[in-house]
């Protein structure tokens, strides 16, 4: 980040942007206004001292600048701007914890009317506070391309009249689902490490965790959000054991001593609050991760039959080839390698699976255990061809060498 003041406010900025965006109904203008306020703060605060409520100061200055900009550009009839009169002083600005505004901002950034990639980009930019360059690097694209995407997305929100208020209770459920999927995508991107940028990967995982916590704080009764947070915590706990000298270590071989105990404890506590009624996909995934993780952590054998059954329920709830691959692995352990191979065969024709490394790796592993070494070797080759980073490739190479 360029500006030290901006770094200081990176987490709090979401609340300020949310307050401004709701009233201006224009995320672009809100961001520009905040930027203007930060510039003025950088000039004034070293001289006048930092105000008691810096967030409120920034909000007021930004708000006044934005209204003035609007008047001068005559973008909207004046009476619409007056609908939300500018606070006269910083004392009149409601405290920064405007939960409704923050949730509304997250919901707006994750609006289903936007492309999935745009939702992720907007959320990272305006909620998590990353800058265009950081987001571009994380998603292996150029900074100008990412800026263009963000500008287009903000324009769509503004010109299509997306509001930055909370939707009705009927609309809230699908909108929250969209937010969860965005957060999960951010985490997956960080966790999978596509491309070779380990430093950014870890940061993305932490951003996803922070976003999940924000959402959980704003909607504490929502079991699916609790599930998502537990899922992310479980995976983050295992991160230290996941890579060693540039090789991706499989779950079964990880050094449990490296796992983060505190995150696991928190995940367990969160999970104990879910599980009432029909389980949604994130609660299911969290349960699956927990069953495996805690068995390993407590040095018990993994109850693979239980895991396989949970995957079967997940497959019914939200079917996908990825779920089937994971289910195949579990079935391969619970029943037999051949049984697992049958599950894989059923999805082999899906075009999405062709470049999915875990499919080929699972297949190769099952074929090996079924005694079909030549077929296994061919499958490892296909896995290697599909690898997107060197850590994955290193693990595949190790398995091929063992097979020889």
């Amino acid at each position, binding site marked *: 980040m360029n500006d030290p003041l901006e770094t200081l406010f990176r987490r709090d900025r979401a609340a300020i942007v949310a307050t401004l965006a709701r009233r201006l109904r224009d995320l672009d203008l809100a961001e520009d206004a905040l930027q203007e306020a930060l510039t003025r703060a950088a000039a004034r605060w070293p001289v006048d001292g930092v105000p008691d409520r810096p967030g409120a100061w920034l909000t007021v200055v930004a708000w006044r600048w934005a209204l003035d900009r609007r008047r001068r550009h005559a973008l909207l009839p004046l009476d619409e701007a007056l609908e939300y009169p500018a606070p006269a002083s910083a004392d009149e600005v409601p405290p920064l914890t405007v939960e409704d505004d923050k949730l509304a901002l997250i919901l707006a950034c994750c*609006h289903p009317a936007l492309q999935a990639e745009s939702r992720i980009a907007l959320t990272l930019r305006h909620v998590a506070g990353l800058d265009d360059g950081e987001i571009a690097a994380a998603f292996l694209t150029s900074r100008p391309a990412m800026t263009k995407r963000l500008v287009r997305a903000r324009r769509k929100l503004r010109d299509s009249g997306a509001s930055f208020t909370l939707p009705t209770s009927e609309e809230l459920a699908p909108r929250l689902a969209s937010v969860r999927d965005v957060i999960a995508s951010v985490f997956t991107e960080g966790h999978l490490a596509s491309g070779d940028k380990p430093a950014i990967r870890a940061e993305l995982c932490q951003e996803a965790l922070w976003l999940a916590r924000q959402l959980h704080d704003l909607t504490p009764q929502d079991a699916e959000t609790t599930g998502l947070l537990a899922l992310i915590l479980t995976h983050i706990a295992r991160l230290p054991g996941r890579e060693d000298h540039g090789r991706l270590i499989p779950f079964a071989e990880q050094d449990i001593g490296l796992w983060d105990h505190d995150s696991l404890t928190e995940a367990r506590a969160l999970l104990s609050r879910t599980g009432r009624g029909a389980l949604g996909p994130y609660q299911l995934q969290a349960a699956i991760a927990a069953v495996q993780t805690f068995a390993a952590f407590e040095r018990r054998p993994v109850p693979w039959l239980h895991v396989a059954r949970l995957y079967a329920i997940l497959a019914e709830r939200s079917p996908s080839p990825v779920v089937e691959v994971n289910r195949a692995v579990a079935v391969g352990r619970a029943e037999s390698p051949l049984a697992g191979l049958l599950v894989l065969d059923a999805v082999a024709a899906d075009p999405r699976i062709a470049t999915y490394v875990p499919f080929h790796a699972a297949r190769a592993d099952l074929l090996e255990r079924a005694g079909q070494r030549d077929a296994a070797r061919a499958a490892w080759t296909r896995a290697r061809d599909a690898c997107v980073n060197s850590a994955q490739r290193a693990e595949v190479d190790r398995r091929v060498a063992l097979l020889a």
Partner: protein
Amino acid sequence: MQYLLLCTNNPDAWNDPGPAAGDGVYDDWDAYTKAMADAGVLVSGAGLHTPEVATTVSVRDGERVLLDGPFMEAKEHIIGVYLIEVPDLDAALAWAAAIPNARTGKTEVRPVRPELTTEATLARA
């Protein structure tokens, strides 16, 4: 804010089995139109003849050119339009999703530029 709902239909999709009951989609266009009017969101609208009876008009090199048919040849075509006035995008999307052929057709929701409504234009004249 005003939105134009461009209701389209694809004749191929029309052969789908009938929709399941009770998911908020109106049974027919009359009921739908009346619901919009009752809700106070309807500005205007109309159902259209099919594209075969359309004529496309342009002027090129000073000459008026007429084409027998719609401006774009496609199976999917516009069957009707609604101009609605609602508070925000979500409200417009909700109405679009309630259209009688929502399960087989598609509806484009296009925001109207507030300064370019005919009302605003005429007010400036």
